[in-house]
């Protein structure tokens, strides 16, 4: 077991535990803090995969911008454990069972995936595709069209937000 496997194990456990914490914790502020830990653990995974750019962007965008938004919403709505709406027991139970079913199906499908990927070689051509230089090259050569279309996507999101949010 080499060092990157150990790191992978630690990061995975951290990500899973903190993700569970997001869902389980009664206090919304704890949920948000757990979510930040999850994002950092996932960024660690990206670095292990040699995708530094993705890791940095993940931290800046998610752990930075989006988390601040979350905190603002919690602050403005003054959420805490007491005012949390309680769902009925049956609904919780049904959700639990449905989640377990999905989990079961995914486990069954992923059971043999490991040996398959070993033989079928779903592997990246080189280990350094995640470096910012190569990423930029791919983005502006092969994938320039979807890159432009994503800018249109942001345009539509922006127009939509303005339309919904503007004054009467």
């Amino acid at each position, binding site marked *: 077991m080499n060092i990157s496997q150990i790191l992978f194990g630690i990061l995975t456990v951290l990500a899973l535990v903190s993700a569970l914490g997001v869902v389980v914790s009664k206090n919304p502020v704890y949920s948000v803090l757990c979510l930040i830990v999850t994002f950092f653990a996932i960024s660690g995974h990206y670095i292990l995969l040699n995708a530094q750019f993705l890791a940095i962007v993940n931290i800046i965008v998610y752990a930075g911008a989006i988390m601040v938004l979350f905190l603002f919403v919690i602050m403005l709505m003054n959420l805490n454990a007491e005012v949390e709406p309680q769902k009925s027991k049956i609904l919780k139970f049904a959700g639990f069972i449905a989640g377990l079913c999905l989990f079961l*199906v*995914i486990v*069954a*499908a*992923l*059971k*043999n*995936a490991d040996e*398959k*990927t070993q033989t*079928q*070689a*779903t*592997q990246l051509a080189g280990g350094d595709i995640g470096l910012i230089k190569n990423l930029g090259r791919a983005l502006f050569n*092969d*994938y*320039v*069209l*979807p890159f432009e*279309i*994503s800018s*249109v*996507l942001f*345009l*539509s*999101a922006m*127009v*939509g*937000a*303005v*339309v*919904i949010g503007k004054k*009467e």
Partner: protein
Amino acid sequence: MNHQQLMALLPFMVLATASIVIILLIAFRQGHTVIQVTGFLMMCLVIFTMWYVRDVLPQTIMPLLIVDGYGALFTGLIIFCVLVVGLFSYIYFEEREENPREYYILIFLSTLGAAILTISRHFISFFIGLELLSVSLYALIAYLRTRNNAVEAGVKYLLLAALTSAFLLFGMALIYMDAGSMDFSAIAQKLHTAEQSSPLFLLGFSLMMIAVGFKLALVPFHLWAADVYQGAPPPVASFIATVSKIGVFAVLLRFAQELHLQNNHSIMTIISVIAMFSMISGNILALRQQNIKRLLAYSSIAHFGYLLVAFLPGNSAGVEAAAFYLIAYAVTILIAFGVIILLSAKDKDAERLSLYRGLFWEKPFVAIVLAVALLSLAGIPLTAGFIGKFYVLMAGVQQQAWLPVIVLVVTSVIGLYYYLRIISTLFADVSVAIQKEKRLHPFFYAASYAALVVLVLLLLGFGVMPAIIIPGIKQFLLIGN
């Protein structure tokens, strides 16, 4: 990217430019009429450029897009629907006097998303197209936010669409893990070499079906449909019912064709079960419905169930049947929503069925148009709906998919009940007049009525002489095959 590839993409660039032009017009404080007319001309320009570049097709723009006859056919249908929706939008929004100008930006951006779906051959363009389509739709559904249901419908659609997008991405990731590529044809090759379909691929495709089923409002992912159709402004509802569904169905069909999914027994079972559930639930839920917008929502669930029967064979006959059915369905649903828009009062849409009581004696033209559209939805002979259903049945019978075919026939008969119920309401003798003062320039009413007449003529024309369009569809589908 070479010259010819750029040429092939020209219609899509014009489509993208249309929204920018509208933004600039708004910046220069132009009125609603100018924007409407410009939008209409831009859409005509898109159709013209499609005709102009027809000789360079098919073009593959590696790795993401393929502009072939199939894509051109469905893009053309989408643009046609947008033209009609835009025309109807004018009188609807002009009467409400709420600032309708940003509406056209969002409509064109959403159309671009749907058009990208029809030409995508890669998961990335599939996903971006779908997101572009739905992000604009969130705002469009909640556009008239002062009305009761609009924001509720918008939020419902937003939450469910975001959730299903997550499923779509996860499904794509699993297929990528299995096949090592996100390119449709590369996945097809990988599947071909594998001796048996892997559980990973099956799970991935099922998760993708959740998102696709949501967009097409197939059972059991249909829960949003009635609420959104009711809450959204009628032009937007007709947009969802036509443009968004045509785009998503086109990409699903292309995916299935490339991968030869009809050879995969388990996937075909999943799809035929979804088809049967959609046909049965859609028709049964519509039976007791008193709100015509909700009724059309349930009927569109059932119609996409029928359409999946044409999807089952996976041969060229199935694709032709699906294309014809989609054309007939789009024309019909546009007529139905056009009538709703024409009858809508300033602060309330004409959605209660009781409003339509005795409409024939009040406004014979509108009532007859609506009756023809409903007959076509029910699949009565002499209308395009009948021919479409006939083709779908033929495709199903050729494949000997007996169970879905039987369900199709039985549920069509059930469906007849509620379509005829509306028609009998239209001709009932107690007349409750729909109060509606005409304030706009009569030209726009004339244009809308003319659009309705053209649509009805198309409907009857395709129904009486399907030969005028079937060869065209075949020819289009041959380009690039």
